[in-house]
C-alpha cells in the first residue's frame, strides 16, 4: 500500500462501531409516521449498545439531515437527548453529500483536539415530506408553498431544471448507451442481493421495531422495503423517462438513518471490538461542474482527489459511490477509464434507495466493512449532490 499523508492524522474511525438502519422506500414503513430525528437518536443509542459502546463516551454530536423534521430548531442537542446523552452538537447539511461531509467535519473536530469522541448521526425521512410556507412579497403569489422533497427534486432554482434532467443531459453529453446502462443496473441489483444473501448486510444494518404512541408495535424496519429482484429483460422493457433514465435505472426516495463514530487513535482502540484495525482519513474534495451536468461531477471530484494524493484507481481496494442514476456509473467509468463492474460490490444507493443525508454514510460503512474483509487498503467514496456538486474522499484501512 502506497504511503500517503492523512488529512486528519489525529482522527480515526473505530472499526465496528457504526451501523445503519435499513432504508425502506418512502411511504412503505412505520418510519413514514415518526419524527425521524427522534428515531435516529434512539436508533443510534441502540446501535451503539449492540456495539458495546456506551453513549456516555460521546462528547459531541454532528447530525446530518436535509429534510426539516419536527423541532429541527433544537438541532443536535435535541437529537442527543433522544440518544440519551445530553451533549452539544452541530447540524450539517449539504444535500446528498451530507453523510460524507458530516464524517469529515467530525474528523476535523477530533483532529483539532476539540474532542476525543464525536458521533456522526445522519438521517432523513422523505415520506410525507414537510411543506414549507414562505412569505415572499416579491413573488407573484405573495406566499410560496414548497414540498421539501419533491419540489426540490423537480426544480434546481439555479438552473431551472430537475434532477432527472441532469441525468439525461449528462448521458447525451457522454453518449451513453441505454443497453450498457441496463446491464450496469442489472449488475448493481445482483451485487446487492448477493451481499444480502451472503449475510454481509447483517453486519452493518440493524433491524428496529417501531412503537406507536400507545407503546405498541407499529412496524418492523428489517429490510430495504421496496427493493426487489429484477431481470435484465424487465430493465430493458422499461420506458425511458429521459435519455438512459428509466424507473429501474434511478434510485428511489427512502427513509432511514446511519451512524459512525470518529475518535482519537487511542479512543478508537478503546471502543473498537477489533482495535488492531486502523481506519484513517486520507483526503476529501468537493467540486462543482457546469449547470445541469451533475452526474459527471463525481468523476471530476475523484480525478482531483487522485491528483492531490498521488494515488491511482488501481490503489483502491474498494470503490463505491452514491449513484442516484445508473448513468452516473457509466459516465464515471468513461471519465476515469474504469470498469464499472469493479465497483459497488456490496450494493449501492441506486438499488437500496436514497434517504439523502444517511446515503453516503451507509455507503461509507459498507465500504469500510468490505475493505476489512479484503484485508485492508484504500477506500474511495464518492457521489453527486444537488447543485451539480461532486464529492469524493479516500480512507485507509489497515
Amino acid at each position: 500500500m502506497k504511503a500517503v499523508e492523512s488529512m486528519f492524522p489525529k482522527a480515526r474511525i473505530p472499526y465496528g462501531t457504526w451501523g445503519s438502519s435499513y432504508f425502506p422506500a418512502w411511504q412503505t414503513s412505520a418510519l413514514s409516521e415518526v419524527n425521524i430525528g427522534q428515531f435516529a437518536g434512539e436508533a443510534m443509542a441502540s446501535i451503539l449498545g449492540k456495539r458495546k459502546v456506551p453513549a456516555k463516551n460521546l462528547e459531541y454530536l454532528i447530525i446530518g439531515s436535509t429534510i426539516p423534521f419536527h423541532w429541527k430548531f433544537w438541532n443536535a442537542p435535541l437529537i442527543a437527548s433522544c440518544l440519551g446523552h445530553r451533549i452539544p452538537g452541530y447540524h450539517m447539511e449539504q444535500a446528498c453529500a451530507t453523510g460524507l461531509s458530516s464524517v469529515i467535519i467530525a474528523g476535523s473536530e477530533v483532529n483539532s483536539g476539540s474532542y476525543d469522541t464525536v458521533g456522526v448521526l445522519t438521517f432523513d425521512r422523505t415520506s410525507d415530506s414537510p411543506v414549507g410556507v414562505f412569505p415572499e412579497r416579491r413573488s407573484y403569489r405573495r406566499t410560496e408553498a414548497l414540498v421539501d422533497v419533491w419540489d426540490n427534486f423537480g426544480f434546481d432554482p439555479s438552473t431551472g431544471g430537475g434532477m432527472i434532467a441532469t441525468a439525461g443531459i449528462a448521458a447525451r453529453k457522454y453518449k451513453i448507451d441505454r443497453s450498457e446502462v441496463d446491464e450496469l443496473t442489472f449488475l448493481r441489483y445482483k451485487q446487492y442481493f448477493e451481499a444480502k444473501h451472503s449475510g454481509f448486510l447483517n453486519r452493518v444494518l440493524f433491524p428496529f421495531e417501531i412503537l406507536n404512541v400507545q407503546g405498541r408495535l407499529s412496524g418492523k424496519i428489517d429490510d430495504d422495503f421496496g427493493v426487489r429482484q429484477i431481470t435484465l429483460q424487465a430493465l430493458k422493457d422499461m420506458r425511458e423517462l429521459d435519455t438512459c433514465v428509466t424507473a429501474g435505472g434511478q434510485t428511489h426516495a427512502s427513509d432511514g438513518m446511519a451512524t459512525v463514530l470518529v475518535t482519537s487513535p487511542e479512543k478508537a482502540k478503546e471502543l473498537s471490538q477489533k482495535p488492531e484495525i486502523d481506519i484513517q482519513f486520507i483526503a476529501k474534495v468537493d467540486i462543482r461542474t457546469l449547470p445541469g451536468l451533475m452526474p459527471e461531477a463525481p468523476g471530476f471530484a475523484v480525478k482531483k482527489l487522485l491528483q492531490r494524493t498521488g494515488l491511482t484507481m488501481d490503489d483502491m481496494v474498494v470503490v463505491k459511490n452514491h449513484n442516484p442514476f445508473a448513468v452516473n456509473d457509466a459516465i464515471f467509468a468513461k471519465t476515469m477509464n474504469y470498469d464499472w463492474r469493479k465497483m459497488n460490490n456490496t450494493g449501492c444507493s441506486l438499488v437500496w434507495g436514497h434517504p439523502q443525508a444517511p446515503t453516503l454514510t451507509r455507503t461509507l460503512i459498507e465500504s469500510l466493512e468490505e475493505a476489512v474483509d479484503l484485508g485492508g487498503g484504500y477506500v474511495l467514496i464518492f457521489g453527486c449532490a444537488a447543485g451539480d456538486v461532486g464529492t469524493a474522499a479516500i480512507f485507509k484501512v489497515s
Partner: protein
Amino acid sequence: MWVLLLFLKFPKKDGGTDMIHQMRASTLQTLGLGSVLEIFQNGKLPVTADELVDQVFGQPGHRGSLVISGANGIVGAGKAMQLGSRLEPYGVPIIALDFPGVSDGMAKQYPGLVAAFGTGNANKIMGNIIKYSYDGKGLPEALSAHNPRFLLEAIPEILDIKKEHYKLFRSKFPDIDIWSVTSGFPGSALGVGIAHPAFPHEINKIWEIVEPEPSPSSQLLWALGLIPMPVGDNWSFVLDVLFCGLTNAGTRFSEVTNMPFWKTDKYIRKYLGPNPFRAHDAIGAAGANFLSWSCLHHLSEHYGELFTPSSTFDEKKESGQNWYPPDHFRPVVDWSMNSDEHEEFNAWILGALFQMTSLMIHENRSHLSQMNLIGELCAQFSKGILAVIRRLGAEDARRLVEAYHKLDPLAAKKAWYPEVFDRIDTPEWQQLYVNAEHDGNVGVISINRESFNSDVNTELNRAIDWLISAGIENVIVSGDFHLSTQMTGADTTDFFPAVEDVTKGIDLSYSWSRTARRLNDVFKTSVGVINGKRCLGGYLELMMHCHYLVAEENAGLGMPEVTLPVIPGMEGCHWPFRKVSPEKYPNLLRLLLTGKSVKAKDSVGWLTDFAGPLEEVIKTAWKIASGADHGLKRREVVKENLKDVTKELPGLEDTDDPFLEQARKAIIGCIQDSCDSSLPEAISIQATVSGNFMTTSLFKKGVIGSAYTKTWKV
C-alpha cells in the same frame, strides 16, 4: 426433614414452662410480643391498644398528644392521617407543627380520608388535628397545654437541623419520646429512635423501627393495626437499600448498554416486580431523585462503590427531571435483549441486589422474613429478594455477584459477604413466608404472605412435614398476626407462565390443590383461622380444606375469580359443595358466580363453622385443636359424586357484561364437572379445567391476562 431450630421457653401462668418448638422465630417475637402459638395458647392477643395508649400517652383524662413536626410534608401529612385516624378514638390529639407559609399538605390528604372513612369520620379525624406554626427556633407557648408525649419528626434530612430540633423539644418537654422518620440517618447519629415509614405514607402500614429494645410505642403501632418491623441501626433502611440500590443498578445498566430508562424499567418490572424509574416519576422526580441520591450518597460513604450514585443519578438529582420521556417524546424505537444481554442485565441488576442483600444479612439488619417482605410490601417486588436468591441457590447467587464484579470491579472491594449465603438451607431462609410451631400437642402454621404463591405452597408443605415428623395431629392454620393483615388470594403473577403453556397451569393448580388437601388428609384435626380483614380466592380455598373454619366476624370472604376471570384452581368449585347440604348450594354459587364477598358472620354453617370477635375466634380455634369442648359439629367431605348441584343460580342478576357472562358459564361448567365426579377424580378435573382456561382468549383479555401482556410481553 427439618431440624428443630428453636426451643423457646415461655412463662406459664402457673409459674411452670411450656416447651414451644419452632421452625424459626416468629416475627412477632422481634417486637417482644411472643409467638403465634402463644396467642392461641393464651386465648388473646399479647397486648391491646387501650393499655398501650395509656402507657405511651397517659391515662384517660391526662392524655398527652402526639406531635408531628414537618406535618405538611409528604411524610408528615400522610402519617398525620394514618395515625390520626387510629388515635382519634382514644382521645389522643395530633399536633401538626410546621413553618408558617408552607403549603397545606394535610388539606391535600382530606379527599383520601373522606374516601376511606366517609365525610363524618374524616371530619372527626381532622377535628382532632391541631395545627401550629413555629419558626424553627422556639416552640409555640400553647403547645404545653397539649402535653406532648411523643414527637414524630418529619423535617428535612439535614442532621444538624434535626438535632437542634430534638434539643428544642427536650429542653421544653424533657420526658418526651422522639422518633425520626429519617430516610437514612442511623439512630446513633440522630440520638433518637427511628420509625422509617414506607410510601405511600397515608396507607402503607410498614414502619422500620430502630430502637434498642421493643418499646410500648412500637407495640402500639402493632396494636393499632400497623406493621412495625424492628431493624438494625445502620445507615439507611432495608426498603431504601433495596429500592435506591435497584434504581442505581438500573441506571448503571442503562449507562453501559444505552438502553433507555423506560425500557430498563420494564425489564426490571418483568423480572423483579418494581418499576423504580416510573416510581420516581410518580412520586415526583424532583424530590424523589434527591432522596434516592442522598440515600445512595450516604451508603456509598460507608459501603463504597456498590452504592455510589451513577453519573446519571448525579444529573437527575441536579435537574430533578423525570426518568421517562415526556409525552411528546414517547419512545419510537423498541429495545429487546438477546441471551448475552440478559446475562449482562442479570449481572448488573441481580448481582448488585444480591450483594446488597448479603450486606444487610451480614449486618443482621432484620429478621429474614421481614427483610424479604419489605421488598414485596413496600417496593413492589413480586418475590422478596431473599426468596429470589433462595430459588437460585447459594452458588448461582454468588456467581451472579461475581459476574457483576467483573463489570464493576470496585464494587467487590467492600460490602460483599458471600458467606451469608452458606446458611441458605436453614429454616430462617427456607421458611420466609410460613412458620410452624407446636407445643407437643397442637401445631400452628402461620402464613405471613398476603397472596398465595408457589413459594408459600412449598413452605407450607415443609411446615406440614415438620409437624408430622414431630407427631403433631392437630393443627391451626392462620395468618401471622403481624406481616399479613389479610389473605388476598392467589398471587396471579404465578399464573403468567400458564398463559403460553397449558401444562404449567394444570400443574400449578394440581400442586396447590394437593397441598390444600393435606390439611384435610394428614391431620386428625385442622382448624383454619381467618384473623385478618379478608380471605379471598385461593387462600379461602386453602382454608376451606381445614376440618373447621373459624373467622373474625367482620372478615370479608369471597371468590372474586369470576371477575378476573379465572377458574378457581384449588378445588373451590367442588370442595365446599361436598361439605354442605344441597339447600346451601345457592350460597356457594352466589359466592362463585358474583365474585362478591360475604361477611364471615353471614357464612356460618355453609362456609365457616364459627364467626365472632377475634378473641373468641382465637379461643375457639384453640379449643378445637386442643381437643377441648367446643360445641361445633365437624362437616364431613362427601367423597362420592354430587348429582344434584344446581346448574343455575335462581335470582342471579343478569349482566350486560359478556365477559362476566362467559366467565360464569366457564365456572358453572367446572362446578358441574368437578362435583359430578368422585373426590379422588375431582382434583384432576378441576386442575385441568383451571389450567386450560388460562390459555383462552377470555382469560387473556381479562385482568390477569392484561397484566401478563403489560408486564411480561416487553
